[in-house]
C-alpha cells in the first residue's frame, strides 16, 4: 500500500476535517521517519516505503480507533435521517397521497398521531443517548429480522411526527429545522453530563461494597456508585477497583 492510500484509509473515519488533516500529517511524519530508518538499513527507497507502511499497522483498524476518539459532536446522520423521512412522509401527506384533499379538513386524526410520535421521539431520544446506543441499535439487535422494525429509532419517530403534523411545505421545512435543533441540543446536553461524570471518576480508585462479577456498587470519593466489571473479572467486598471508563451512565471498573 502507498503511504497516501494508507493515510486516507486510516483517517477517513475521523469526522472533523481539521482533526483529520492534523492526524494525517502526524501519521505521515511517522511514515517518513520509518522510511528513513529502513533506508539507513540499506533497503531500496521502494522497499523502505513499503516496509514503513506495513510497520504502521492495519489502516482500517487505526481509522476505527480514531473514529472512537473523535466522535462527532453534532450527529449529522440523525439530522439527515430526520430530514429524509420527514420529507418523504410530509410529502406523501401534502401531495394528497396519504389522505384525500383538502388536507386541513381530514387530517385531525393524523395530526394527533403526529404529536404522539413527536412526544415519544423526544423521550426515546433521551433514553438512546443516555444509554449511548448506536444509531440503528434495533437493527444491530436483530430487529431487522422483523422487517422495518429494525429502522426504529427516535429520529424515525420524530420524522413521522413531523410528516403527519404539517399542513404546508413551509411548516414542513420549519418543523424539520426546529425538531433537529431541539433534538441535537437534548442529545448534546446528555453527552456533556456523561463526559463530566466520566472525567470526575476516571482512574479514581474505589472500594467494592460487596462481591459481584458483573454489576455492583462501589464506594468512591465518599459516594456509592454503580459499576460494571471488566468481562471475566470479579470484585470481592472491600477490594479496591479502578474506574476505566463509562458505558451509558454506568462506570466501568477493573481489579487493581
Amino acid at each position: 500500500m502507498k503511504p497516501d492510500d494508507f493515510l486516507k484509509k486510516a483517517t477517513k473515519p475521523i469526522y472533523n476535517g481539521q482533526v483529520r488533516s492534523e492526524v494525517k500529517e502526524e501519521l505521515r511524519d511517522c511514515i517518513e521517519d520509518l522510511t528513513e530508518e529502513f533506508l539507513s538499513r540499506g533497503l531500496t527507497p521502494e522497499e523502505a516505503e513499503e516496509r514503513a507502511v506495513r510497520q504502521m499497522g492495519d489502516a482500517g483498524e487505526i481509522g476505527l480507533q480514531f473514529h472512537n476518539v473523535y466522535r462527532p459532536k453534532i450527529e449529522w446522520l440523525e439530522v439527515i435521517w430526520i430530514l429524509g423521512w420527514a420529507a418523504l412522509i410530509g410529502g406523501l401527506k401534502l401531495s394528497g397521497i396519504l389522505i384525500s384533499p383538502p388536507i386541513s379538513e381530514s387530517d385531525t386524526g393524523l395530526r394527533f398521531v403526529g404529536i404522539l410520535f413527536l412526544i415519544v421521539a423526544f423521550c426515546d431520544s433521551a433514553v438512546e443517548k443516555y444509554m449511548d446506543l448506536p444509531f440503528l441499535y434495533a437493527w444491530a439487535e436483530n430487529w431487522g429480522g422483523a422487517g422495518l422494525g429494525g429502522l426504529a429509532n427516535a429520529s424515525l419517530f420524530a420524522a413521522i411526527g413531523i410528516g403527519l403534523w404539517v399542513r404546508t411545505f413551509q411548516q414542513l421545512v420549519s418543523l424539520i429545522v426546529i425538531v433537529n435543533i431541539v433534538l441535537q441540543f437534548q442529545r448534546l446536553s446528555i453527552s456533556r453530563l456523561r463526559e463530566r461524570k466520566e472525567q470526575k471518576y476516571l482512574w479514581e480508585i474505589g472500594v467494592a461494597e460487596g462481591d459481584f462479577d458483573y454489576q455492583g456498587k462501589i464506594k468512591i470519593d465518599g459516594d456509592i456508585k454503580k459499576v460494571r466489571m471488566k468481562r471475566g473479572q470479579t470484585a470481592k467486598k472491600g477490594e479496591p477497583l479502578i474506574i476505566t471508563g463509562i458505558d451509558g451512565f454506568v462506570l466501568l471498573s477493573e481489579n487493581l
Partner: protein
Amino acid sequence: MATDASLFSGSMTMLVLKLLEEKDMYGYEMIDTLCRKSNNVFEMKAGTLYPLLHTLVKQKCLESYEKEVNGKTRKYYRLTAVGKKLLETKQKVWREYSEAVVDIIGGAPNEA
C-alpha cells in the same frame, strides 16, 4: 525474542506515560526509544500508539504542542498532572503484580 502481545498491550499506557515523564517526545521518538530501551522487545506499532496518544490527550493525561526541529514541525506530547497521577497508579499496580508473579515463578533466571 518473541513477546506475548497481550502482556504488552495492557501495560502500553504505562510505558508511554513513563517515557514522557523523562522528557517531551513526538510519536516516532517514543517508538524508537521504547524499542532501543527494551532491546527490541517492545516493537510498538505506530497504528496502536497514535490513537492511544490522542485518547490520553482527550483524557487530559497528556498535552500536545508543535515545535520545529531540524526544519521539520513535530507534534510533541507532554505529561500533565493527571497523567502523572495515572502513571503512579499504574506503576504501583504493575509492581504489585510483577512481584506476585516473581514470588510464584522465582526470581532472575541465574538464581533458578
